């Protein structure tokens, strides 16, 4: 049996990805996390005199905190196994990536273990976010300077 024949056979037997089920789960959990975020935002606006603009940061920090606790308790792992992108894409998933890496590094000490590994998973998100922001802003600046678009 050559590799190509084998890959055909393997594909026949391997159960297909449950696309519909996964999409539904991602939609429900992702939507729910954003709804919770919306609720927290309203709480900040109504009870703590935050404005629409400033409540965003407080909400993000709160969601990150909740996800950190759930990660420590091992609950976010279960949520991630169930929801896939539904729990990975919200900022809580970013928190999960940072916190789980930090906890994992504990046995190698605070500096080399926690410090050296805390951005093991989330580092690429930060790098590409910053890199992309740099180039987008640069392009926009060039275009504005050239008089093609306005700010």
């Amino acid at each position, binding site marked *: *049996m050559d590799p190509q024949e084998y890959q055909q056979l393997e594909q*026949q037997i391997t*159960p297909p990805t449950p696309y519909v089920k996964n999409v539904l789960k991602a939609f429900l959990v992702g939507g729910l996390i954003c709804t919770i975020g919306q609720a927290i935002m309203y709480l900040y606006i109504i009870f703590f005199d935050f404005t629409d603009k400033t409540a965003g940061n407080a909400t993000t920090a709160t969601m990150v905190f909740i996800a950190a606790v759930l990660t420590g308790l091992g609950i976010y*792992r279960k949520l991630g196994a*169930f929801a896939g992108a539904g729990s990975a894409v919200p900022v809580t998933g970013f928190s*999960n990536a940072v916190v*789980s890496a930090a906890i994992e590094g504990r046995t190698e000490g605070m500096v080399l273990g926690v410090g050296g590994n805390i951005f093991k998973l989330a580092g690429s998100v930060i790098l590409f976010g910053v890199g992309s922001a740099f180039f987008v802003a640069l392009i926009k600046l060039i275009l504005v300077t050239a008089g093609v678009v306005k700010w």
Partner: protein
Amino acid sequence: MVILFTSKPSIIACGVAAGPLEQRSVFYSYFDSVAEDERWGQKSNEQGHSKMIQEACDIVMEKAKIKNLDVDFFLSGDLVNQMTPTNFAARELAISFIGLFSACATSVSSVIVASLLTELGASQYAIAGAASQHNAIERQFRYPINYGFQKPATAQWTVTAAGYALIGKHDPNLPSIVAGTVGKVVDYGEVNPLHMGGAMAPAAYDTITSHLKKRHQKITDYDLIMTGDLGKIGLKILKAMFAQSGEKQEDLEIFRDAGGEFYGEDEKFQAGASGAGCSASVFFSYIEQQLKTGRFKRVLLVATGALLSPLSYQQGETIPCTAHAIEITME
């Protein structure tokens, strides 16, 4: 390469130590010791891993009523970088030691080396086996333990278990190793590290067919051919390969997989168990005991190993795999 052991080295005693989650294994009642703490009271997972290996080896020596000074060789491996858990266990055991790496196939490659040393007359007693600890392996090969990600149906759960066997001179009342096959490294181009069964099945097929050919045997000459950790899906693929090569459907029942059966039908474990300790803990508990009671007279144990690293996967390499086999008989 098939090796015939004319002196038929015997499995004198076996010892299996497992973690708390392994209480859910269908083979649980055959294990010698199951820990309450997955770190064995140690500070790190890796230290716990090491402690578990020591415990399994201590059980082996206790059962055989010998001390570490009586053992000539300790042949073992695990999946952590540079195999530190095994190396550190060897330090405590103070037995002449060779570390072996065949990934999850180490459980059998170590027995083959032990049998060779016994056949040579160089070894009176040799402890051979392998181990894996879930947390230590997962953090190395995949994600941090508390990171949430979706596993496909083909994913397998690394077991926390250590399985060791004491190999000595032939004893007609004990299971004896009559032949062993050292597998080639086979790579059919699988790249998905969450589909190990699919990557390893061709290696198992290659090793089993080589063994049968050299021994002039059919699959039905065995009471059981058990693979290490192909998982439920990998076993199906292996059976399909043998079906295509002309084996009868009813004869394929001879094939079983330790990883596929390990956690029963619990879907939380997806396709089943994996890890060096998976085949080691099943072969050196359940299988050994079934041989001793005479339920099986002739078995072929085929441990499978995926020879990848997180680095090789990230560099876009395919997953090379191997399988080593031992034929054990009971007179």
